[in-house]
Every structure is written in structure tokens, then in C-alpha cells.
């Protein structure tokens, strides 16, 4: 981690090191959310998800979100990491986490990180079904 945040777009997310990354002598609480590929979406079997991104902009937006959260909740460390490419069932696609003195701050910040990432960061997800593929959220 460079400074107090690690912001990355990667091919594969390694969930095993995130608590070590967010560890800090000033932090009593660390909250981490992982988003993974579910087998079924509205009763339809999903074979895989495919993610693409506008990388330079995505990294900028992720950094803005991290800075907003650090300021609002006085966080000690933040991780925002998203995967791209084809992801199969159970594979992690996103990991966000925050560490802070007390647990209220890291829970609220972690929720903010994932909610805001989903709203603003230019990443697109295509759901691959047996007989079709769909860009998620594209149409009302």
C-alpha cells in the first residue's frame, strides 16, 4: 500500500492479504466487503460475468471515493480493488475495505465505498447465460 490507500484494477483478486493491508496500529476495526459471482440471477443460471473498464477514469473515480471516505470517517487505511475479464461463479470481482479506530466508521465507510463504486466507477458487467449475454443495468 502506497500511503493510506490501495486503489487497483486487477485481473485476479487475492482476498487473502486484505486484512494485513488494512492493519494499522491506530485501527481497532477493519471492515471488508467482497462481491462475488452468484450462480443464479433472477432464477437464470449465470455461466460467468465479464467486466470491462475505462481504466484511467475508473482509477481516478476510485481514488476520489477513497479520499471522500477517508475524510468523512477519519479512516486510517482504504482498499478499493476491482477485477476485469471473465469471472466464474464464486470468484471475487470486487473488494473494498476500510480500517478505523472504532467499528462504526469502518462499517459505514465500507458500505459507502461499494455503493458509490457501483454508482460512479466506469466498469461494465456482462452476464453470460446459456443462450444470451446481457450488459447489466444498460436498459430500464
Amino acid at each position: 500500500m502506497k500511503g493510506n490507500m490501495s486503489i487497483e484494477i486487477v485481473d485476479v483478486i487475492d482476498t487473502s492479504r486484505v486484512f494485513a493491508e488494512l492493519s494499522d496500529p491506530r485501527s481497532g476495526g477493519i471492515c471488508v466487503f467482497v462481491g462475488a459471482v452468484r450462480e443464479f440471477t433472477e432464477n437464470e443460471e449465470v455461466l460467468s460475468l465479464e467486466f470491462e473498464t475505462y481504466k484511467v477514469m475508473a482509477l481516478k473515480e476510485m481514488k476520489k471515493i477513497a479520499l471522500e471516505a477517508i475524510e468523512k470517517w477519519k479512516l486510517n487505511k482504504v482498499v478499493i480493488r476491482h477485477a476485469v475479464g471473465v469471472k466464474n461463479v464464486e470468484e471475487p470481482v470486487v473488494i473494498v475495505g476500510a480500517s478505523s479506530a472504532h467499528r462504526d466508521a469502518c462499517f459505514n465507510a465500507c458500505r459507502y465505498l461499494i455503493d458509490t463504486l457501483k454508482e460512479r466507477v466506469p466498469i461494465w458487467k456482462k452476464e453470460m447465460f446459456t443462450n444470451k449475454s446481457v450488459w447489466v443495468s444498460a436498459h430500464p
Partner: protein
Amino acid sequence: MEVLLFGIAKDIVGKGSFRFSADEQAPASVSELKDRLKGSFPEFGKLTSLAVAVNSAYAEDGDRLNESDEIAIIPPVSGG
């Protein structure tokens, strides 16, 4: 002026970027770019939302476009 395309925008246009050629007038603003896109590709009008990024930051409808800007069409995002 080159315009980058992602997600469903790439599928609608059929390529990852396009350019307004020298002999046609490039759109002067974000809203003009959106209007011309919807004119050429009516599918853009059916999306949940349509945003434009200028130099890798979200732009407002009234923002001006310059030939040297990095411009990107941002269809509804769906990360996470």
C-alpha cells in the same frame, strides 16, 4: 475528434472508438455529442442513462469539447 466507447456503447456502434472526420463538423458540446449519437444510433436513446467523460472525468451537458480532449461515452455503469 476521437470518441472512446465502452460496454454496450461499443456493441451499439460496433467498435471501440470512432472519430468525427475532418470534413464533418465535430460536436461543440457534450449535449451536442449526445444528440448526434442518438441521431446516428437510436439505441443510445433507449439506455437507462448516457454520460460523457472528458479527459477521464464526468462532464456536464453544457461542457465544451475540444479536438485535443479525450472523450468517452459512458453507458450505465455496473461494476461491483
